[in-house]
């Protein structure tokens, strides 16, 4: 009879878990919507920034002898130090979301290490930090709490160290890795080489008339814009990653809820079987008892 009770307890426990996962799914759906809205709002800034950046680089290319130059665009053929900044979540229970990012970072690391390039890792988010610390990999820099609530100022501060290092030669390349939002049900890994800036990647937009600049040193204007561009890229990968995290968690919790339903179904069947069995045994006992009495 103990068997029956055990199964009953199991069913209750699975149902309880299901309640939790269902609630978490609902929460993630709501949070995803908010994160999406944030990303959408911030697109206006990105568009304006890109437009201005392309216009200004066009103007410089057109009117300045030698085209655009500056530290931000200097591509080093054999980099000696590479910074990899990656974004993971602070919380778990979101399927393979963080693992995908970590795997990509490890692949990148191996690729550069095999070429004898020094790799410096900068981690955002608890899960990534925990993973690399557990595996005894040194992290150059780490921050917790930024990926769950993106903040422009903190993001700018975090990336500033890399930008400064890049400007004074401390590093030759800065790569940004995060798991980005693709759709409600899909995420994709995004690897963004933010420094040096690929000059061909900047779409040149023709301006209708000559732009007047203030201050007149157009490169100073460009530099200042590029710094914003980098900061913004950092911020955007945070909000993109947050949206992806919620969509991943939503999915994970959805399948967990489904799995739980399936498990309850199976357990109920075995419960019914066990019940029937015990009734049959009891009946046999009674009948055989009666037979013996005759």
């Amino acid at each position, binding site marked *: 009879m103990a068997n029956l009770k055990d199964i009953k307890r199991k069913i209750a426990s699975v149902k309880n878990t299901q309640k939790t996962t269902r609630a978490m799914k609902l929460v993630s759906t709501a949070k995803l919507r908010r994160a999406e809205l944030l990303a959408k709002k911030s697109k206006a*800034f990105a568009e304006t920034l890109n437009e*201005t950046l392309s216009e200004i680089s066009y103007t410089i290319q057109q009117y300045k002898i030698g085209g655009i130059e500056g530290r931000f665009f200097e591509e080093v053929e054999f980099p000696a130090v590479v910074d990899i900044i990656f974004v993971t979540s602070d919380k778990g229970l979101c399927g393979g979301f963080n693992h995908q990012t970590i795997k990509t970072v490890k692949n990148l690391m191996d690729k550069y290490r095999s070429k004898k390039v020094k790799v410096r890792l900068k981690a955002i988010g608890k899960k990534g930090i925990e993973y690399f610390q557990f595996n005894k990999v040194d992290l150059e820099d780490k921050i917790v709490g930024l990926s769950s609530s993106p903040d422009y100022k903190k993001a700018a501060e975090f990336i500033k160290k890399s930008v400064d290092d890049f400007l004074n030669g401390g590093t030759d390349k800065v790569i940004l890795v995060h798991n980005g939002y693709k759709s409600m049900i899909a995420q994709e890994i995004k690897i963004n080489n933010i420094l040096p800036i690929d000059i061909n990647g900047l779409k040149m937009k023709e301006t209708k*008339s000559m732009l007047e600049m203030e201050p007149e040193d157009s490169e100073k204007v460009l530099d200042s814009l590029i710094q914003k561009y980098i900061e913004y890229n950092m911020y955007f990968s945070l909000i993109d990653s947050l949206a992806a995290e919620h969509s991943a968690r939503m999915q994970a919790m959805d399948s967990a809820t489904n799995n739980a339903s399936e498990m309850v179904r199976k357990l109920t069947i075995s419960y019914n079987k066990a019940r029937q069995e015990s009734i049959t045994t009891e009946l046999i006992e009674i009948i055989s008892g009666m037979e013996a009495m005759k």
Partner: protein
Amino acid sequence: METLRLKIVTPEGEIFNDDVKSVTFPGEEGEFGVLPKHANLLSLLKPGVIEIEKKDSQKESIAINWGHVKVSEDGTTVLVDSAVPLVGESESDIAKAIKEAKELVQKASENKAALASVEARIEKAAKLI
């Protein structure tokens, strides 16, 4: 009355998008005003106050810590890091906005003299509300 299109965007979203009569910016090389049909211009902005004269001649002020502005045929677009609009429903709201605006500018600038003039501006703008 001719107007120009003014758009102010921060990384968190658009904070202003409307037709206005004129607007004054704290440019890197000095303050300047923009009226409709201004020549194309791209300028860096320093910490300070953007003053807007709206269609209904109402004044609005927004404190910023950094930014740049692009004036072109299709309108005037301002990109800023963070901004505090100096508006409020009640006295306490306004007081709060002023405090925030001052903090914002203080963080962005170390130049004491510039800071003082900006603060004076913020106070002045606040009085107009």
